[in-house]
């Protein structure tokens, strides 16, 4: 009766105009802000955070999953100086991850065809 819908954990609440990502610049710290990813969890949070850590322009990045029943990720990003802002480094990180993902799929298909070829080659020789 009081249980929320299971789909509420991963589908955006369109009735309340929920956007996927929202940004709040930090009032005290320069070149820093908090991105809120709605209806996301560690699957994407940890992936993006690790990629951001590889960028030398990033001074600080950390993410938080406030509570298992609250379905959002808060990610704080601070860049080294004013030349790049947090939004740009985030976009770059997600872009790099998308390229890597595409590569993964290609490599997987290549590896599978190579494996199947070797299998057929072996069975041919055994016959």
């Amino acid at each position, binding site marked *: 009766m009081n249980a929320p819908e299971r789909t509420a954990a991963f589908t955006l609440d369109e009735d309340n105009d929920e956007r996927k990502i929202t940004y709040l610049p930090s009032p005290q710290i320069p070149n820093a802000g908090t991105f809120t990813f709605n209806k996301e969890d560690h699957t994407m949070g940890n*992936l993006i955070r690790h990629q951001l850590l590889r960028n030398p322009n990033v001074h600080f990045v950390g993410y938080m999953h406030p509570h298992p029943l609250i379905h959002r990720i808060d990610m704080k990003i601070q860049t080294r100086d004013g030349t790049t802002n947090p939004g740009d480094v985030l976009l770059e990180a997600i872009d790099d991850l998308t390229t890597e993902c595409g590569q993964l799929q290609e490599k997987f298909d290549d590896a599978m065809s190579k494996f199947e070829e070797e299998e057929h080659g072996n069975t041919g020789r055994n016959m």
Partner: protein
Amino acid sequence: MPNNRFPKLHILSSSPHTLTFELSETDVSVANTLRRMLIADVPTLAIDLVSVHENTTCLLDEYLSHRLGMIPLRYYDDTANRYGDPSKEFREPRDCTCEDGCPKCWVTFTLGVQFSDKTDNPNTKTVSITSADLKSSNSNVSPASFLSEEEEENAQEEGISLVKLARGQHLYLEARARLGCSKEHAKWCPVAVATYRFIPEVTLNTPALSKLTLKQREELVECCPDQILKIDDVTGQILLAEDYEDKATFTEDLHYLQESMKGSPEDDNFITVKQSESRFVFTVESTGCMHPVEITRSAMRRMEEKLIMLKGECAGINEGV
């Protein structure tokens, strides 16, 4: 500047229900995300709505419906010639253009069995209703009753056992299946096992090892329960065992024994066993609903789709700012 990595993939073994492959030159976060996607985000088919017309069996309607939901459903992909990704043909009902359900978003199953259908023998006390009795409205979708023909031959039932009937009992219901992902309910989970382990990186400190006696070296080799080391017969030196990469489970025994053997606590270790930070061995075991290669492909594809969607949203935010 782009900081992307160039991952490498090598298939170790592939069978109709298990796939093992090695992913390397990438970060542990990518491996973990892939594992999470394999478990939670791959769309599969499962029964979601059950309309019971007659049920005089010993199980309650909702108990039966739960069991029906947990049956893995297979979709035969004609292009791949094996059981594959149902999202190629089906859509989720909330994304579908139809109003009230159509063959593109729901698959209907009927189950109508009474005791007399199953046996003529007057001495039989109970008969079993199994997943083989489910009749599908779509010829490409069927319940995954067995993992292999061998299992089917050795089985006592004709499929996954649902309920047993006694004389005079009757079950007649209609069930509708839809696409969903494991985040919503575990019945949509395509894998029984989706895990990865780290390849070990072993460094042997040869100068320090050569100062040990043969007995001490044998002690070191014996103390590790995984037996990842061995003594060379000729030279008496410690070497790595042939299949140490598969056997290592990163126990602490070697470390503790070395602490007692060292001259002083600050000395370097003789043997260090570390988890690799960039090489992972994945094992994907399917429940029978899809070929594990198709599951992995689907997970990688969904990962890319999700990242593309996030990229679009992020670009939108940046323009606003």
